[in-house]
């Protein structure tokens, strides 16, 4: 059977082929259709992989989690579900563990994010100078970020150990008694924040550095001619120049802090890690989720915590947008 393209490659009208490909006009229309599909359809095909993966690994779990959160269901018997409506949500609202975890997430978040970003800003400012071997220092700044959470947390746990840890040993040199880092609420939260700060400072510093290098040199020159000191240059030129990057890192760090999980889990180790200490003194929302799901095996309650965290992030996002808009209007 002859194919249309071989009988009239230039698209000239010929005798209608018997295979039903239609007249020249029809063929023309089909080509236009294919062309349009190509132009408009192909981009969708190209971005499809992400969205297919997103649908399977983010959207579907999200929906499924919300479904589970309306049930009473145990991890070992996921097929047996008992409908309880919004009971899990009201129980969570009345559960002081939830408020405790929320507060801990907030305090650990502040304890880790604020010093971390300040230090990153300073570090980036220093790296921005003409340095010998600057590549080395930049790579070195990124090294902690490349370390796994588990390894970092384990090492820090040993450093912070009560009887034989290095930090208590150093404190004892200046006459300070051993601190029980795990059992003291603020000591534990500070120790956990230290792990977070250690891991993320270099990463944020490099983000800042990239933004700083986009600031035109002549601004600094102009400032220098006007007699601005290095510190004034930093405050009046550098910081305003990278404002959007700072906002970006704040958003990233906030999301990270809300989901804090690995560091406190490993810091406590064993049963105490899961509950965030014997008195839940450093239990974050992530740990509460894990405790409900993988210690108490109540998947419904765990899913409820997950949704509470999700809603919390949305609220944070909205607040951030509002603040940004208000600030922009003022400016």
């Amino acid at each position, binding site marked *: 059977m002859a194919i249309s*393209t071989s009988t009239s*490659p230039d698209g000239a009208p010929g005798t209608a082929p018997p295979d039903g490909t239609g007249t020249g006009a029809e063929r023309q229309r089909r080509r236009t259709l*294919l*062309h349009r599909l*190509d132009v408009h*359809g*192909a981009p969708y*095909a*190209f971005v*499809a*992989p992400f969205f*297919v*993966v997103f649908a*399977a*690994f983010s959207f579907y779990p999200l929906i499924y989690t919300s479904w589970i959160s309306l049930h009473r269901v*145990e*991890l*070992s*018997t*996921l097929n047996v579900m008992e409908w309880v409506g919004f009971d899990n949500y009201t129980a969570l609202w009345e559960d002081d*563990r939830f408020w405790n975890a929320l507060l801990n997430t907030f305090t650990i978040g502040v304890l880790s994010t604020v010093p971390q970003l300040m230090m990153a800003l300073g570090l980036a400012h220093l790296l921005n100078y003409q340095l010998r071997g600057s590549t080395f220092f930049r790579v070195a700044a990124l090294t902690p970020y490349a370390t796994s959470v588990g390894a970092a947390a384990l090492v820090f*746990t*040993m450093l912070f*150990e*009560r*009887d*034989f840890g290095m930090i208590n040993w150093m404190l004892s040199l200046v006459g300070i008694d051993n601190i*029980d880092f*795990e*059992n003291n609420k603020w000591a534990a939260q500070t120790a956990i924040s230290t792990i977070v700060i250690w891991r993320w400072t270099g990463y944020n510093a490099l983000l800042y550095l990239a933004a700083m290098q986009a600031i035109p040199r002549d601004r600094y020159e102009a400032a220098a001619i006007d007699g601005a000191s290095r510190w004034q240059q930093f405050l009046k030129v550098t910081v305003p120049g990278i404002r959007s990057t700072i906002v970006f890192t704040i958003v990233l760090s906030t999301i990270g802090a809300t989901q804090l999980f690995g560091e406190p889990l490993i810091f406590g*180790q*064993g*049963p*105490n890690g*899961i*509950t965030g200490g*014997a*008195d839940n003194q450093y239990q974050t929302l992530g740990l509460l989720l894990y405790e409900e799901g*993988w*210690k*108490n*095996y109540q998947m419904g309650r765990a899913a409820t915590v997950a949704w509470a965290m999700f809603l919390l992030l949305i609220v944070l996002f909205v607040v951030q947008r509002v603040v940004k808009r208000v600030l922009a209007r003022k400016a």
Partner: protein
Amino acid sequence: MGKVRRKLRTRAVAAVSVVSALGLVVGCGGSDGGGTGGGKKDGKTTITMGLFGVMGFKETGLLDKYMKEHPDVVIKADVAGDEQTYYTALQTHLAAGSGLKDIQGIEIGRAKELSDTQKDKFVDLAGAAGTDHFLPWKQSQVTTEDKKVIGLGTDIGPMAVCYRKDLFAQAGLPTDRDEVAKLWEGDWSKYVEAGKTFKKKSKDDKVAFMDSSSGLFNAMIYGNSQQFYDKKGELIYETNPVVKDAWKLASEAATSDLTAKLRQFQPGWDPGLANSTFASTVCPAWMLAHISEKAGPKNKGKWDVAKAPQGANWGGSFLGVMEKSPVKKEAQDLVAWLTAPEQQAYLFKEIGNFPSSQTALEMPEVVDAKSDYFAGAPIGQIFGTAAKEIPDEQVLGRKDGTIKDIFSQGLTLIEAQGKSPNEAWKTTDKRIQKAAG
């Protein structure tokens, strides 16, 4: 023409990207199809095992011995140090139906939960050849209501008290194991009294009498046939006098500053053993391996074992075979071999894990066993006597393991955080309601 080809190429690329995206998804979904790790290949059978703590099979070379005797078998054992971590992963694997090993270790605190909710996922080992040598109560712990046996027993945990002779001596306490046993004969509260004497007379105030109050708590409750649950499966910890007494005495030890404020098997405990921060610990037989390993050669001979005030069973494990395993038959053979009397006696001799096999209990290797590390203590005699005092019936409950953890944390509240025993009990009670409800 060129245009057409280009068009075709774009379409092909588009198609490939869509297909590969779908493939990714399907691929990820399908990766759990195999279920367990082992299999047969090129005439070799690979059996995978998931273990925890010091069960000893790998450590003492038993697995190597089996592989030597069966050249066509390769055993891959994965040992998690911490049982809680191990069990959490096992639960997740069971729920997902993937990532399971052919053989999985089961700790006694989880036995009831697994035989209640997961029995279909384990091979029934009832009546398997050559497996009728276990202590009856041991076997009954993993027998489901319809008489299915989901695991074979490894060790049991008769209790004694491990103590440091040198530290007892400097506090003016006796050091001979018989005299030490007399100090607290018949009553755990005498053990706490001994601790008070120790504290008063000790010349080194950095050394505590015992490691943790939760060890004492465990020893006391496991001497009774009912602990947290009754036979009907109802929670009775609130009213059970055994639990109340144990809580009272353990919190007394905690508030009298007799403990090193450590948590067994958690950070600080191992260096505590190595650096001698406490003089005694309540030790089930299986703990001897851990102590000798962590306290190290420099403390050899300083440790000794004395009879506990009351017989009790703390812990002990089982080995189960997964129904999904592609090498079920071979895995069963391995489990039967590992839990056979000869191997149990060998493990006891090597690392002190006490046999759950009646046959093994009567073997001279067990009866006459002495421990070099523990100053030549006749551990066969001491633990053997203790094993006979273990109640014949032990009622297990679904959340035993979790409840034990919560009680340990409750005692930590008193010990390390300065909460009052009353306040700590309230918190503990609330947590158990949450966890078990």
